[in-house]
């Protein structure tokens, strides 16, 4: 009987304490590494990375004590980053940020100031004395706005086309198949450059070009999923109850197709953030002084990056963290929804 009782392991020291200690040490190291001007850059980075690792390990332990063994610290960090970034973007006009685009007003500001994480320019300034934190946040506005609207457009259009092709099949499917394959046959960057030469590089047009890239993938996924479900008996059952084609597409098939398509959409956001950055880096996206992560990274061209690495590293870090976070959250969402549909 005593064998069946759960063994209570009296660990010393308790995991709560270890977790808290690790997290605190990590946080201290991270702040120390980031803010101490006496250290050389590689040492700073090493200390900060060590601190970040310890912080993650500590938070993971704390989370497991608090929320059970299923706690995924990376997912929560990703979600927290997206939330924080989202809030910062929304509130950017009211935050005490330094100038981000008006070169005339920054004549007195220091140029190429290195990040100190304190003071008026926590992430430093660029060649014109414009504040990198402010530019990163305003840059995130256009980067995310473009990628989100492009994904939304691509998902709706691609998903609808894919569902119609998958449901009606025959000649509709053949036409859609040819169109999708020819779109896929053009290298994406070439297509973007071609579009950029024709279209004015403002927000709406860039979003439109990027949406065009997401459509083939969405069409394929929606088409395949629709085909898989259209042969299930519940579609025949709905038909036998007097449901028309539109009703079957919208009420029976759409809810089933939505889950995988939305999961792909979340992952696609991160792809488009990178694509938009590449376009802006090539000078084909949003034009300076309007900041985006891509054209901020482009400011590091020439010898600037070697002398002032933070010009590239700051927007690069924003880009990296955001893409990483979208991927982690998207993967989690897909895993959750997929397992549910598998169970059925």
């Amino acid at each position, binding site marked *: 009987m005593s064998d069946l009782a759960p063994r209570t392991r009296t660990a010393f020291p308790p995991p709560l304490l270890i977790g808290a200690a690790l997290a605190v040490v990590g946080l201290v190291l991270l702040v120390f590494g980031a803010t101490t001007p006496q250290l050389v850059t590689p040492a700073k980075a090493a200390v900060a990375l060590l601190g970040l690792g310890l912080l993650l390990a500590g938070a993971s332990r704390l989370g497991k004590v608090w929320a059970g063994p299923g706690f995924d610290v990376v997912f929560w960090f990703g979600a927290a980053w997206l939330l924080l970034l989202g809030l910062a973007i929304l509130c950017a006009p009211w935050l005490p940020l330094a100038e981000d685009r008006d070169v005339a007003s920054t004549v007195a500001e220091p140029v190429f100031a290195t990040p100190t994480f304190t003071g008026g320019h926590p992430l430093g300034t660029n060649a014109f004395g414009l504040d990198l934190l402010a530019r990163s946040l305003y840059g995130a506005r256009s980067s995310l706005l473009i990628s989100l609207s492009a994904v939304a457009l691509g998902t709706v259009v691609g998903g609808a086309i894919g569902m119609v092709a998958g449901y009606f099949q025959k000649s509709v499917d053949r036409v859609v198949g040819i169109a999708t394959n020819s779109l896929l046959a053009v290298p994406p960057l070439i297509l973007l450059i071609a579009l950029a030469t024709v279209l004015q590089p403002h927000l709406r047009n860039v979003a439109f070009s990027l949406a065009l890239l997401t459509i083939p993938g969405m069409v394929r996924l929606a088409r395949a999923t629709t085909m898989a479900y259209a042969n299930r008996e519940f579609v025949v*059952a709905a038909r*036998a*109850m*007097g449901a028309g084609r539109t009703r079957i597409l919208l009420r029976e098939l759409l809810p089933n197709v939505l889950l995988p398509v939305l999961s792909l959409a979340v992952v696609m956001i991160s792809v488009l953030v990178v694509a938009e950055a590449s376009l802006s880096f090539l000078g084909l996206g949003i034009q300076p002084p309007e900041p985006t992560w891509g054209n901020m990274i482009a400011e590091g061209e020439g010898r600037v990056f070697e002398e002032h690495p933070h010009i590239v590293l700051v927007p690069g870090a924003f880009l990296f963290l955001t893409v990483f976070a979208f991927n982690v959250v998207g993967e989690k969402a897909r895993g959750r929804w997929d397992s549910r549909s598998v169970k059925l």
Partner: protein
Amino acid sequence: MTPKREAATTAPAPTDGTRGTAAPPLLDATDVRTAFHTPRGAVRAVDGVSLTLSEGETLGIVGESGSGKSVLGRTLMGLITDGPGTTVSGTVRIGGKDVHALTPAGRRALWGTEVAMVFQDPMTSLNPVKKTGTHLSESLRLHLGLGRADARDRAVDLLRQVGIPEPARRAGQYPHELSGGMRQRVVIAMALACGPRLLIADEPTTALDVTVQKQILDLLRSLAEELRMATILISHDLATVAGRTDRVAVMYAGRLVEYADTAAVFDRPRHPYSSALIASIPRLDLPPHTLLPAIEGRPPNLLHPPAGCRFAPRCDTATDRCTTESPGLTAYAGERDAGGLVACHHPLGAAEEAAV
């Protein structure tokens, strides 16, 4: 169920199972043929079947796998229609309307309200992302024009009617949260939702546990009686049909071989195929390890069906005539009540009857 239906069903009232009254039958199918065109030729899945069914009557369609039972059920309903890849001929009238002559919209109006179908596999005939209540309320709102709240109340009533405990809670659950038997009850409730006058149950218990099978069949029977609904029970299992139908149609290779009152078929089958089918039912009074009498051979390939009687190659009593001349479905003379039909040149006589 609805007042309108009560009025409609009480008028003719052929209660004792006799046919041939003045009122037109609810279902009247004449010479139905369904052929699927495949790269290897036309597969004639249903080849000249005629059936009638009156209000409140129960018909069992039995036959082995591939005999065309399900295709017949779907053709009767109009789910399979004439089109590219499929040829349907003959007429099917449900409540006086020619199903195959209607427009698609006209057929859709018929489905659910006049005729409904219970499908074989409750695992796949419910949409995994829709709640059970939604399955029911959607067609209620579509056909009966009920409001959202009314439809929900009606859905809960329907779930209660098919014997689901805690119907209000079950209505809010997804199909995967229900057991197989429960799901089939939901499928039945769906079919009943708009008060059809004809219910076609296509192997409703094949995917279920034996104990649950009986519950579902009893439920179907009691609902059919309660709602005065005509029922077609399609099955490969003679036992499911035996005690629960008024008449039985035995199908073989796309044709009806015997079509008579259930008691008559089980008592004294006239067609050698029916007789062999009944003989192959395991019996409790036989000693253990007795070999079951099986029918030798396999069903014919419907791409190239044999000339003459399709059962002839497997039949003990077949003669030369059987392999050349196809027997029609005709009434047999004798002491039996009128209405029994058999398609055989040498229907089993008194000697065989005594043996079975």
